[in-house]
């Protein structure tokens, strides 16, 4: 399909801009004035609409079908949230509006914080971080500020992460100036406690852990972990990406964690938008509250809501304003539609995952044979060894059956990993159809592996060459090389 730039013709336009007679002429000093207009597309409005409509049909979303992308919690995004976020009182509210003119927004933020505190079992919340990874970074900044405040910052330089950790965890450690300590996973899929004990000491600043882990397994030794870290004077950070498994069932605060980020776009249904936006609020234990980003949302004694910038120990700001407000509206709306029934949400997510697991585990290798939580990881190692069909091939072949593939090749501890997260918002019929497809593909791998290796066959494009893209990167349209399209 053509690029929008290839549909452009000089002189066409979609916009009409108000012009006013009798005003001062627009003046820019010559040396600052734009010399060559940007080559933005020149198309009438209907071409614009058709172009993006057609593009959308070349994309697959949760609204299109089953999207069991592990670790991403691709659940249904309620349509009412889109309507609510578009209310002028929210969408057209300027973030510099005075507190008196933003009481509704501030109250919403405050209420959202209360709910998140209850769900995580912690004391204070900052909504500011823009996504999970920024939540992690913010959390580690809090760790640093906390230990600085206690005079232990020079001593505590290490952050422990397990080998199952998501890539953002180590990256955040680096960006926050900490050093990494890796711990292994034991044969049951828990953190290897013996390995750990040897590595945690007075130089340890914190643990970063996802629980349930990226294997979809709840760490059975969580209480022991708590004793080890807190015993060593270190803090515990909870990567909340997998909170969808445990809402109302088990709370990070109760597990012993001191800092938690919540992925609003996963557990609480901010639509993922092709890659974002997200929201990564952090919840903390009381002793860490003074260090949270400014401004803090406060509920004043007179019943009004406000912003408190006067937090001398605060780490500062990690993003503009109070955070991605539109994401808060959606998350708040979503949680209000569940209330205490959030527990049912998590139960259904876990039930769905275990059902699919039960149906697939004979056909695919299951590295850790336990009940899973909201997701699980299979391995295509045997398929590869026996028939040459990789996890990638299975993924591509699933497309032909009308499903989005699972996450693949992650977590790294599982070779040829297939990480499957059905979420709670699927019918049993859909789960069954997916299982049938997975089972059929396992058979196809044995009978006709080319079918997998050449997949997908029924998408708008065939398999794409990623190596070539990286070798000679073409990262924007090169007008000069396409003179024909400009008359």
């Amino acid at each position, binding site marked *: 399909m053509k690029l*929008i730039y290839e549909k452009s013709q000089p002189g066409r336009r979609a916009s009409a801009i108000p012009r006013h007679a009798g005003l*001062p002429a*627009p003046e820019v000093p010559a040396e600052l004035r734009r010399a060559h207009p940007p080559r933005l597309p020149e198309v009438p409005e209907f071409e614009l609409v058709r172009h993006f409509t057609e593009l959308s049909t070349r994309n697959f979303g949760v609204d299109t079908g089953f999207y069991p992308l592990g670790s991403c919690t691709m659940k249904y995004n309620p349509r009412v949230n889109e309507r*609510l976020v578009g209310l002028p009182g929210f969408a057209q509210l300027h973030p510099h509006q005075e507190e008196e003119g933003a009481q*509704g927004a501030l109250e919403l933020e405050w209420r959202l914080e209360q709910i998140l505190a209850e769900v995580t079992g912690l004391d204070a919340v900052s909504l500011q971080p823009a996504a999970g990874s920024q939540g992690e970074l913010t959390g580690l900044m809090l760790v640093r500020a906390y230990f600085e405040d206690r005079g232990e910052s020079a001593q505590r330089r290490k952050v422990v992460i397990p080998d199952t950790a998501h890539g953002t965890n180590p990256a955040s450690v680096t960006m926050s100036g900490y050093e990494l300590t890796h711990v292994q996973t034991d044969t049951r899929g828990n953190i290897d406690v013996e390995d750990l004990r040897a590595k945690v000491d007075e130089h340890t600043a914190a643990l970063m852990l996802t629980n349930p882990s990226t294997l979809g397994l709840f760490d059975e030794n969580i209480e022991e972990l708590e004793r080890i870290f807190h015993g060593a004077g270190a803090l515990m950070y909870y990567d909340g990406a997998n909170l969808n498994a445990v809402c109302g069932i088990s709370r990070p605060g109760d597990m012993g964690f001191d800092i938690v980020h919540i992925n609003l776009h996963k557990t609480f249904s901010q639509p993922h938008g092709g890659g974002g936006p997200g929201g990564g609020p952090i919840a903390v234990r009381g002793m860490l509250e003074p260090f949270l980003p400014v401004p803090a949302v406060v509920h004043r004694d007179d019943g009004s809501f406000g912003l408190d910038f006067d937090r001398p120990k605060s780490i500062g700001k990690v993003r503009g304003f109070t955070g991605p407000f539109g994401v808060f509206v959606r998350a708040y709306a979503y949680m209000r539609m569940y209330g205490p029934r959030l527990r049912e949400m998590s139960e259904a997510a876990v039930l769905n995952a275990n059902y699919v697991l039960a149906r697939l585990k004979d056909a695919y290798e299951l590295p850790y044979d336990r009940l899973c939580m909201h997701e699980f990881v299979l391995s295509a190692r045997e398929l590869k060894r026996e028939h040459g069909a990789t996890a990638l091939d299975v993924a591509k072949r699933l497309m032909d059956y009308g499903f989005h593939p699972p996450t693949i090749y992650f977590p790294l501890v599982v070779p040829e990993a297939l990480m499957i997260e059905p979420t709670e918002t699927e019918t049993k019929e859909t789960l069954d159809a997916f299982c049938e497809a997975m089972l059929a593909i396992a058979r196809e791998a044995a009978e006709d592996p080319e079918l997998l290796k050449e997949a997908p066959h029924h998408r708008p494009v065939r398999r794409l060459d990623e190596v070539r893209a990286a070798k000679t990167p073409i990262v924007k349209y090169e007008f000069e090389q396409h003179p024909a399209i400009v008359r």
Partner: protein
Amino acid sequence: MTHPFLALTDADVEEMLRTIGVSSVDELFRDIPPGVRLDRGLELEPALSEQELSAHLAGLAARNADTTRELSFLGAGIYDHYVPAVVDAVLQRGEFLTAYTPYQPEMSQGVLQSIFEYQTAICELTGMDVSNASGYDGETVTADACFVARHATGRTKIVVTEATNPQVRQVVKTYAPGFGLEVVEVPHRGGVTDPDALRQAADGAAAVIFQQPNFFGCLEPAPDLAAAANEAEALPVAHVDPLSLGVLEAPGRYGCALALGEGQAAGNMPSYGGPHYGFLACRRDFIRRMPGRIVGETVDAAGERGYVLTLQTREQHIRREKATSNITTNQTLLALGGLVYLTWLGPQGIRELGETCLSLAAYAKERLQEVAGLELLFADRTTFKEFAVRLGRNARDVVRDARTLGVHPGYALGRDYEGLDDVLLVAVTEKRTPAEIDRLAAVLAEVA
């Protein structure tokens, strides 16, 4: 489980438990030690129906004075530009809205091609070679640029002009310690930055960050600032208003290494501060240091053109602690909004929009100057769509009083700058009309 977002009937549950081989849903959680289980229900208000929820949120929304209810001249980083209906029409397509990062390109050509088109638009606007697929906002992409500069130069100092958006500076300072960077600020002189002062500060710096138009709305001598940085072999980083780039020169044309900014003005609603997108573009030299997603062109097995995420070895899921950033979820949907908006504008539209802003702001300056007691703060500077005006009294008080008359007159600069307590930063977009500006003048005449 008869919640609108759940689907399992009792019969389903029973059959599924049987297949799994457990006798109850509770049993599925047996790996969770009893000591860390929640032994009570969540203490949250009862579930609301969609109808009740809508009424509740309409009530909250009604307690906000948004720009449809108050005539607003607020800017200071976030602007009330017109967002055409096509933007939302595109973003509400479920195939875009409910997809995630296009890891599987064959499922995601819609998102991938549109990001490729977005990257092209950003490169065209800024005069740069490479754009990423978006950062969180105008603040964090500036911190990202510092990380790029630190590793590209090996240096540990960041210079930023004081006339750069205060929130941007705050975020840079919050990130700096983790990056091992110190931050030095260069004061403005009469509303703009002095290239000589900047040159001095730039010595040994990794990057020099300035904003164009700057936070006061004034046009910086940007080519001179970039030259000053280049002389010191520091990377010049321009923080720009995308909608100024129809009338103002592209940073790539005057020697900048990186150009970035807040995308909100181009296609996003103010939304009380987000979600928006930060755009980040650089010269080809830095392509392998760029944080975030980048989409590249390739071909499929049949030789047809297609798009994929590329240069992923920069990223956390491959490189982990050695990645150029920890970012993964970004702001794709908002950047798509930006692309749709910029496509709507086109080259003529963006120039006309800039001209309309220039004219209306010039008119506003004229009108406010006529009001007794009001004085332009940097009267001899050229401005774009925003300008500072000195009032007779504390600007926050004036804002409060003006709001009772239905007008938000602008941003009180004393929030961030010492000595400017009586100064108001007034933003005038193409959404304002001459009549509305007259009303602003009348209200300020009354309360300022």
